[in-house]
């Protein structure tokens, strides 16, 4: 399809990097499919079974080991866990975010705070929860503490970047007129960043709902995630898994809708990866 008479495109740094990236990832993927052990699973048969399972799951949901009311209570508990950990993470992250914003504090403080939270975020949430569970000898409280810790790391980074996008002129003007650090924060930085802060916080709430489902299934945090684990891993009851999947899907779609609306309202540019 190449247009006749045009010279070939020159190799630039971006196109070389892009080509290399695709080649490496493609090679790793091919190697994985060829080399990883499927332990003799009948792949075609397993796909057919999953197809049938999905039909049963989504089209014939039922409740046998729990009532629908109990399932709804499970959803409420999971939502509560998500909300609690978001708020608990947001409060210290707000303070930390102010200190870590490059336009508000010294560079060394910003760099060390960000390094610290990227370390926190590098440990998967489930591991934090499991570590806190033995470390403090706690049951469900460990899920709250572990998820809070991870939310703190995520929100601190997001908040500090939101603060950095506050109009520089406003801050300079206040500083020039002799406003103190706290006055600059209270009158320019916080009001300017509020829509972005709300948007990021709600996005984290959306993430934390999903994480709370996972912690219920994998780390004993209860709620709908635990019901899911019992239905799929213990009773092998697909129709119950269906009920749970539908409930989670409805809540998650609602949360995603809210997060998208808030993001648009914050008038921030598209969330880039």
């Amino acid at each position, binding site marked *: 399809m190449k247009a006749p008479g045009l010279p070939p495109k020159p190799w630039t740094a*971006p196109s070389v990097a892009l080509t290399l990236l695709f080649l490496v990832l493609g090679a790793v993927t091919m190697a994985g499919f060829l080399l990883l052990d*499927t332990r003799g699973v009948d792949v075609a048969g397993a796909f057919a*079974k999953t197809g049938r399972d999905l039909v049963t799951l989504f089209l014939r949901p039922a409740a046998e080991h729990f009532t629908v009311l109990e399932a709804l209570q499970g959803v409420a508990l999971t939502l*509560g866990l998500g909300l609690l950990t978001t708020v608990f993470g947001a409060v210290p992250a707000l303070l930390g975010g102010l200190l870590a914003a490059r336009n508000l504090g010294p560079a060394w403080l910003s760099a060390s705070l960000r390094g610290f939270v990227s370390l926190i975020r590098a440990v998967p949430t489930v591991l934090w929860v499991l570590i806190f569970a033995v470390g403090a000898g*706690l049951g469900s409280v460990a899920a709250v503490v572990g998820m809070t810790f991870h939310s703190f790391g995520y929100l601190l980074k997001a908040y500090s970047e939101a603060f950095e996008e506050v109009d520089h002129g406003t801050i300079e003007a206040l500083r020039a007129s002799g406003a103190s650090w706290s006055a600059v924060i209270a009158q320019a930085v916080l009001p300017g960043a509020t829509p972005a802060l709300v948007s990021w916080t709600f996005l984290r709430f959306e993430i934390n709902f999903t994480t709370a489902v996972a912690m219920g299934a994998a780390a004993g945090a209860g709620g709908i995630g635990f019901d899911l684990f019992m239905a799929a891993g213990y009773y092998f009851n697909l129709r119950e898994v269906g009920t749970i999947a539908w409930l989670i*899907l409805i809540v998650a779609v609602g949360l995603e809708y809210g997060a998208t609306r808030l993001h648009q309202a914050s008038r921030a540019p598209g969330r880039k990866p």
Partner: protein
Amino acid sequence: MTAHRTIHQWFRRRQLGTGLGLAVVFAVTAGAAALTQFDLAEGFAAFPKALGWMGANFVPDARAWANLPKILSRLGETVVVSVMAATTAALVSFVLAILGSKTTRFHPAATVVVRALASVGRNIPVVAWAMIFLLAFGQTFLTGFLALFIESLGFLTRSYLETIDEAASAPVEALRAAGTPWAPVAAHAVVPSVLPGLASWMLFMLETNIRSATLVGLLTGTGIGFLFDLYYKSLNYPSAALTTLAIVVVVLILEAVSGFLRKVIL
């Protein structure tokens, strides 16, 4: 004087709004705390205790370092599965997004179907997909791969749709005005302008997958998650600590590499 009063009123209203917002957040949080029966004091007390325990017990010892080859091989498997899921999902999402985008205008029904599929994929948590695939695929890498693939597919399709919808409309309009059908428009105007953005989202997905893979592995008995679970349940905390450390190092390296690539590409 009136202006003076008005600005006072304005500040007052702003303070009132902030106060009201904080009150609502406080009330909802208190409700959630009651619902989950979370004891704030216990939580705060637990935190330093947990950190102290970590410092004393959650440290790799000589016995743990002997397990390093096993840990690295399992971790390697998890990284490969995460790469496979992100790469194949990116490929399929790319096709879906081209078909579903408003820019290429393939078919209006395609937009609805693609968006609905993507929404189901990403809004059902990866743990649920993992449990579902576990029923047919058992404790093999395929279970984790498929769960991560579906989740990545849902997420990447949405991101790709947004990227392509926002893509340069001037070349698209020019080609379309010349009567070009949708396929060459997609190939010559849309794809070249969005490729760096799509690659950047794929890198993001890869980072996310490595974190999720640990969780999926824990639940389905595969990869590095399985190994962590094994050490954790047999109270071999030094080895569990080394496993965690290895995950942290890999995640940080990956973040650095993808950050660098993103800077070069975009």
